[in-house]
């Protein structure tokens, strides 16, 4: 297999999106069969992607045609796997949610695949311009996916708000790219870093400005502190599977690109950001925690807690130039941990509320365990993992990040993060307590465990547990050690020639 094999995942998703677009025009296929086709394309892409999983390589496919704008390395394969699993998970947990009577049509799946295509491209792009376009492809489809149900005003508002703010942040990215180009005369990752080396003796103030603008876009997309205002309303206004998709997958893709950019090029510039980023992190943690404490609605609580998790991730991001490999592998690992837990939690809530237009609050879960013991068990697992209790994958992720931060000398950050974790136990455990310690159930019309979504969510729950205890109990079994090894390999593959 030649260069094409490195592009197959992208091709499958892109072609799938176009095919779905054409199929949804005919209106003869039911929505579930279109979902099946979308699933088929994603699975094909996933299989062709896994082929290179964990293999140390860095290839610029068709370099004489693409001029090194697209790269395929261990790093991108790793993240593409997460993204593809995310897209597959979105379809699976929304299996009962995407129904024609909710005005979901075939185009929704086309947009989902386009969005995934954009994210995968973002992970694979080795150049700022194509990264910008990839980011815009992903965001554009997301805007529409959020507001797909045009008869629902809250959806439209969320979509519009995200569209306006997102476009603004996209413009900043473009402007930053222009400034970097003005300073370094290149937009290719890898070359920028070479131009910025202090040895060249160049005035790099323009590049610093440009990189900071790109950082702002990045902070916006992952909803870090000064740019977090949209998060709760947009997540709350979106259909639940879309919220899950945004919270887990989109964040992963943006983080993946920024990590590559910073690790490859901005090591020198990052020194200027240290103070700034530390402030951002502490405020993100504080503000997110405060917001999460104030929420009564479960979906809004998960949205605000996603801000807190952004804060944790940024801690590892700061320490990346001091303890490079272990910091980036801890980010990569934490992304998986958060991805699994958030996907599971959002998915389960969307399944519970899929029968009617219920907005789930804490109160609704009083005594839930008596009606649906398995569901409450799964929900508890996800909450435990989000809180970072030992025995779940969330704990291992947090452990790596905090120990890394201390190792890199950011004790203040580690302390505040641990504080935030302690407080977070309150709002996660509140749900568990309500579910188990109240006698009479309030929710009556919860669908029973039947069909695809619960099975899939069950798998996620098992994965969360297995990631937390697997390596201690089952020796010689591929476990998180394997994932962490691959994460380290991925980091190394960034610097291959």
């Amino acid at each position, binding site marked *: 297999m030649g260069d094409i094999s490195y592009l197959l995942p992208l091709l499958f998703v892109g072609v799938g999106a176009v095919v779905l677009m054409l199929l949804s025009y005919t209106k003869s296929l039911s929505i579930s069969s279109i979902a099946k086709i979308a699933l088929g394309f994603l699975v094909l892409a996933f299989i062709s992607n896994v082929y290179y999983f964990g293999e140390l390589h860095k290839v610029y496919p068709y370099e004489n045609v693409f001029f090194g704008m697209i790269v395929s390395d261990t790093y991108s394969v790793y993240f593409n796997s997460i993204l593809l699993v995310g897209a597959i998970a979105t379809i699976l947990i929304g299996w009962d949610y995407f129904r024609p009577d909710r005005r979901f049509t075939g185009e929704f799946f086309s947009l989902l695949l386009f969005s995934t295509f954009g994210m995968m491209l973002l992970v694979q792009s080795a150049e700022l311009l194509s990264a910008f376009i990839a980011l815009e492809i992903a965001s554009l489809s997301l805007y529409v996916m959020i507001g797909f149900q*045009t008869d629902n005003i809250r959806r439209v508002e969320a979509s519009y708000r995200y569209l306006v703010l997102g476009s603004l942040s996209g413009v900043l990215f473009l402007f930053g790219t222009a400034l970097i180009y003005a300073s370094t005369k290149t937009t290719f990752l890898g070359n920028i870093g070479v131009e910025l080396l202090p040895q060249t003796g160049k005035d790099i103030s323009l590049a610093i400005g440009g990189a900071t603008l790109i950082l702002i876009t990045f902070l916006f997309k992952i909803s870090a502190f000064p740019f977090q205002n949209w998060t709760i309303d947009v997540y709350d206004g979106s259909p639940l599977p879309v919220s899950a998709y945004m919270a887990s997958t989109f964040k992963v893709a943006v983080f993946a690109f920024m990590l590559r950019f910073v690790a490859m090029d901005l090591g020198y510039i990052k020194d200027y950001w240290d103070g700034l980023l530390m402030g951002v992190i502490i405020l993100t943690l504080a503000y997110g925690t405060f917001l999460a404490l104030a929420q009564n609605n479960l979906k809004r609580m998960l949205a605000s807690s996603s801000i807190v998790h952004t804060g944790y991730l940024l801690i590892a991001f700061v320490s990346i130039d001091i303890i490079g490999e272990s910091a980036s592998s801890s980010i990569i690992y934490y992304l998986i941990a958060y991805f699994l837990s958030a996907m599971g939690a959002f998915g389960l809530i969307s399944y519970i509320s899929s029968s009617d237009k219920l907005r789930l609050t804490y109160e609704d879960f009083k005594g839930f365990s008596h009606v649906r013991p398995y569901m409450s068990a799964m929900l508890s697992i996800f909450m435990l993992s989000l809180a970072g209790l030992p025995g779940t994958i969330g704990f291992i992720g947090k452990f790596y990040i905090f120990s890394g931060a201390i190792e890199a000398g950011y004790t203040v950050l580690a302390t505040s993060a641990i504080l935030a974790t302690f407080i977070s136990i309150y709002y996660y455990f509140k749900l568990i307590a309500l579910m188990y310690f109240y006698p009479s159930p309030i929710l009556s019309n919860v669908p029973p465990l039947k069909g695809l979504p619960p099975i899939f969510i069950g798998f996620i729950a098992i994965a969360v547990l297995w990631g937390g205890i697997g390596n201690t109990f089952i020796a010689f079994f591929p476990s998180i050690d394997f994932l962490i090894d691959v994460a380290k390999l991925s980091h190394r593959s960034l610097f291959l020639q």
Partner: protein
Amino acid sequence: MYEIIAFYTFSALVIGLFGIVVLSKNALYSMTALAGGMVFISGFFFILDAEFLGVVQIVVYTGAIMALYAFGMMFFDTTRDVKEDIRCKKIFYTLSILSAVLVLIVLSAPIFSANIEAIYPTLEGVGNVQTIGLLLFTKYLVAFELAAIMLLVAMIAGIVLVGKKLDAQSDDLEVAKELK
């Protein structure tokens, strides 16, 4: 000398027209001035011997984008003045003036601080079109093709969001007919 005359004429025209765009209360005046300003901006490209960009400026902005704006404006009565509802004028003016000054500083800083030199100076005997074409179809091929996909997504998005409303409206019409 004629270049200078042309430059200042075009500058005055562009600034004047864009001033009208911002200051006029009538949407049709603003649109006309904006379209005119876009045409005159192309004059700068022609002065710089970048004919291709100049023509593209006319075709894209004036010929296509502004015409679509105008098409949208046909749904309103454009011969009447628009009443702007700005609650706190002070903040509004301060912010807009501040951002204008900021943009000016950001754009002019590199000009004053360093000599700007072209990395790809125009080659003798090779026209604008060829140079742009070469860059677009070699180095930036991927970005160029991806932009096409982005536009496709935008098109799907537009059709999905608007097309459904048209359906709903036609349903309403049918209901109305049945009621009669």
